[in-house]
């Protein structure tokens, strides 16, 4: 790591594997999730959804439903004050002009996917709400539909929207492609297909809304984005300061709770009825109603010299947006920027398109477009290595980006790129090869590297804020709008405040995720919360320290530089000290504030012309390398992962235990993606709306993931941390496919890699 910086030493709290404060509550089941909350007189709400993937609503009559017992409200599109919901860039950001995407809160005249919300019901009991939904008279007339993006873009395809089926396209062209391929010793072509995937968090979408004092519509729910209070206000046609969103500790998010879920419905029903309303989706509703991860068709043509050096890549990407835009244009942008991988490539062409279909909508999910491409570029990298007889670690090291290199999109890498070391460490961690347990079982190993942006696109002008203040007894309060999705977001803020202000962890309380009472911090998405809110918290803590220390210096009659804040005291180099309690009392007498609001603005820029190769798109990237050892049963096609190592450069691990947890959890989600998960659709109808049919990995399906945490000391977050929420989900599918090829010679190009697909590739079934 020649060009990397050493990590800061001498820290007391940061960098230690400290058990998280929220873990104690959670093991005692003392955490009140969104559904663990009730109010007197509360109504129960239900969404009536379309059974058709494409149909005209010929008749929609609520009279019979309104007459059923216990019903308080039945709403359709015409009852919604402003029936349009923006789904483009939630959070503390500016809008992005042409990317602005909207959809109807409730269907107007036609439905475009199965599960599209048509009517909204509130009743005294959930059973009554469901009964009333049955009594809503809806008559549908099926319309022509289209279920794949390639069909959708074919001439004469049924139009999902009047604007046409091509939702967005991006292009990158850099270097002389023809000359690159002419130089190549080997040219590898491949087409890869990825699938629809569900977030499948354990906690379904849920929340409770009520009208609070001053008419403030208050919505307590499981969300990654409390800033949706603004979207709710727009829909309800009330001022934005009349809607408050309280985010609970989430039972998982993974992007699925980034878009609006229940908050708009709850707001509408609370406003209409004046009563508290609860909405909790069943697993079936969640699997039916929530946006999925985008399936892609990825076409690659890769040329390399005999040394393994990649000289040209021609890439064509096609994604399925489903029936509405949501965040598809942005997801596609992530795919476009990452398509050629974390490698030096002198000539690159990327053409990326995403199209509307009558499938379920697709939107944010962990990896956000930068993870589907890993399956493409790392399958290609392996094929190049095999064609040239090169070692997999070597071929990545030959091609790896270095600090100062320029990505195809024109962005210069400004921090250390640890790829060669990560690849070597992951590969070595597999240890001595396992012997096959039977003659028909083959063992193989595969490697896959990746890079994932952390922080939001620079032209979204992202920012975060955090407030830190002392109570008179020296205990500390941190307030920050960041939702905690379970990754330790709140706990990291506590660690940072403790480090700077010398307050023991147990003397700090953190309040998060309340749009009225905590300073806004933006979304818990894009691997940005430690980076952004960590920086805001660090800034608040340092500035608060700078406010207090001069007072202590006067009390002890020493220079500020001679003081340290440690263990709840201010200590001078000569050993004398003043307690926080006395210092704070003195601050009160001297009119020195005991709190500070820290605001952090990310490096920002203007929108770039991708095609012109104009420059910076993301603040920075996190790099990783995963290695897998698999066994393949050549009689059945069954694949078992025997060993798995996942290495990432996190810049600086604020809490190594949490970092390992993110890496292990992300890798296992990635193994689910690679080996078993698929939302199965038949002409737009979802056949996997239960956990019995939508399978995610169980404890018995996966091995222990060995997390390898590299700290280069280079990242844009607090103490030079990088984001680590999303990156570990990228490599597993490619690592597994590469290992299967090493074991059997068969190349799998379609996800998930089920036993049936492997059996087919091995010629066991036709």
């Amino acid at each position, binding site marked *: 790591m020649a060009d990397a910086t050493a990590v800061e030493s001498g820290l007391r709290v940061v960098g230690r*594997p400290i*058990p*998280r404060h*929220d*873990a*104690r*509550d*959670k*093991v*005692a*089941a003392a*955490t*009140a*999730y969104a*559904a*663990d*909350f*009730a109010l007197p007189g509360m109504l129960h709400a239900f969404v009536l959804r379309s059974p058709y993937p494409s149909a005209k609503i010929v008749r929609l009559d609520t009279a019979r439903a309104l007459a059923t017992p216990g019903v308080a409200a039945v709403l359709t599109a015409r009852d919604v004050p402003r029936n349009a919901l923006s789904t483009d860039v939630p959070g503390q950001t500016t809008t992005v002009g042409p990317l602005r995407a909207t959809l109807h809160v409730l269907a107007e005249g036609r439905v475009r996917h199965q599960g599209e919300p048509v009517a909204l019901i509130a009743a005294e009991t959930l059973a009554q709400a469901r009964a009333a939904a049955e009594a809503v008279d809806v008559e549908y007339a099926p319309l022509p539909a289209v279920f794949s993006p390639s069909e959708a873009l074919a001439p004469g395809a049924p139009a999902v929207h009047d604007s046409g089926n091509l939702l967005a396209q991006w292009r990158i062209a850099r270097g002389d492609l023809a000359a690159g391929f002419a130089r190549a010793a080997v040219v590898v072509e491949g087409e890869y297909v990825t699938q629809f995937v569900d*977030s*499948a*968090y*354990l*906690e*379904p979408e849920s929340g409770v809304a009520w009208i609070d004092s001053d008419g403030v519509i208050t919505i307590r729910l499981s969300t990654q984005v409390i800033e949706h209070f603004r979207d709710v206000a727009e829909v309800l046609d009330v001022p934005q300061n009349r809607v408050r969103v309280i985010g609970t*500790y*989430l*039972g*998982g998010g*993974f992007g699925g709770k980034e878009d609006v879920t229940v908050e708009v419905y709850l707001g509408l029903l609370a406003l209409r009825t004046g009563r508290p309303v609860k909405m*909790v989706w*069943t*697993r*079936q509703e969640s699997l039916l109603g929530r946006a999925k991860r985008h399936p892609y068709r990825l076409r690659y043509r890769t040329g390399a010299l005999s040394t393994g050096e990649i000289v040209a890549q021609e890439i064509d990407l096609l994604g399925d947006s489903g029936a509405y835009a949501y965040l598809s244009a942005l997801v596609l942008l992530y795919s476009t920027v990452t398509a050629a991988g974390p490698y030096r490539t002198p000539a690159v062409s990327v053409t990326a398109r995403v199209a509307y279909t009558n499938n379920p909508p697709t939107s944010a999910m962990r990896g956000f477009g930068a993870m589907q491409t890993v399956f493409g570029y790392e399958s290609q990298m392996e094929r190049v290595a095999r064609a040239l007889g090169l070692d997999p670690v070597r071929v990545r090291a030959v091609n790896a980006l270095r600090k100062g290199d320029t990505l195809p999109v024109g962005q210069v890498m400004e921090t250390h790129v640890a790829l060669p070391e990560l690849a070597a460490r992951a590969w070595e961690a597999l240890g001595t090869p396992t012997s096959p347990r039977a003659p028909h079982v083959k063992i193989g190993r595969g490697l896959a590297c990746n890079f994932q942006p952390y922080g939001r696109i620079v032209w979204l002008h992202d920012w975060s804020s955090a407030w830190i203040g002392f109570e008179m007894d020296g205990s500390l309060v941190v307030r920050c709008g960041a939702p905690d*999705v*379970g*990754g*330790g977001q709140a706990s990291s803020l506590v660690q940072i405040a403790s480090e700077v202000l010398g307050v023991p962890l147990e003397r700090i309380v953190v309040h998060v995720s309340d749009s009225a009472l905590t300073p806004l911090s933006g979304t818990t998405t894009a691997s940005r919360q430690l980076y952004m809110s960590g920086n805001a918290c660090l800034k608040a803590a340092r500035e608060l320290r700078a406010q207090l220390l001069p007072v202590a210096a006067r009390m002890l009659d020493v220079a500020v530089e001679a003081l340290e804040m440690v263990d709840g005291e201010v200590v001078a180099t000569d050993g004398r000290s003043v307690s926080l309690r006395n210092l704070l009392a003195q601050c009160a007498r001297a009119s020195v504030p005991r709190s500070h609001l820290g605001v952090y603005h990310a490096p920002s820029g203007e929108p770039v012309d991708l095609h012109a190769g104009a420059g910076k798109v993301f603040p920075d990237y996190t790099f990783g390398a995963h290695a897998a050892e698999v066994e393949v049963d050549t009689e059945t096609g069954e694949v078992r992962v025997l060993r798995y190592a996942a290495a990432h450069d996190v810049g600086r691990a604020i809490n190594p*235990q*949490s970092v*390992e*947890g993110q890496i*292990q*959890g*992300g*890798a*296992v*989600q990635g193994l689910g993606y690679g080996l078993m998960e698929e939302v199965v659709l038949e002409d737009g109808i979802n056949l996997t709306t*239960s*956990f*019995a049919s939508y399978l*995610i990995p*169980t*404890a*018995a399906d*996966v091995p*222990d*993931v060995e997390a390898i945490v590299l700290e280069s000391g280079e990242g844009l977050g607090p103490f030079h941390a990088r984001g680590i929420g999303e990156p570990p989900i990228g490599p597993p599918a490619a690592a597994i496919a590469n290992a299967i090829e090493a074991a059997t010679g068969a190349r799998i190009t379609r996800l998930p890699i089920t036993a049936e697909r492997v059996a087919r590739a091995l010629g066991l079934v036709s």
Partner: protein
Amino acid sequence: MKLLINGRTREVEAPAADQTLLGVLRDTLGIFDVKEGCGEGVCGACTVLLDGRPISSCLFLAAAVRGRAIVTVKGLEREGGLHPLQEAFVRHGAVQCGFCTPGMLLTALAFLETNPRPDRDEIRHALEGNLCRCTGYAKIVDAIEAYARNGDDRG
């Protein structure tokens, strides 16, 4: 009908024939330490111990538990403190979002009654009916293994 929950007797109206134990616990009694993840007996979030054995309370009819002992995660605490397995979960970082945690703890404890010294594979198989989407399971297995090895895992 009388229910024995965490050693205390609770009186509820006779449940409807199709009412689940989960429904009675959460909706009637407000016992929110039992979670609902899927409602179809797959994910294990609603696990409770019935006469010491783990069951999916979302599938179990309430009428069938009359007079039998139910333990939820709140029933694990000892003298106001956490159970050593709960402490092990905290110490080993076995908790992320925490939604699967109550069910995981109860399943693990019931399993350790039958197999007090399991290896990691046996622990993994015992947890097959409890889904976790956050941790990748490794630290959950670490916690259970450490607890089994050390008794109360104070070392």
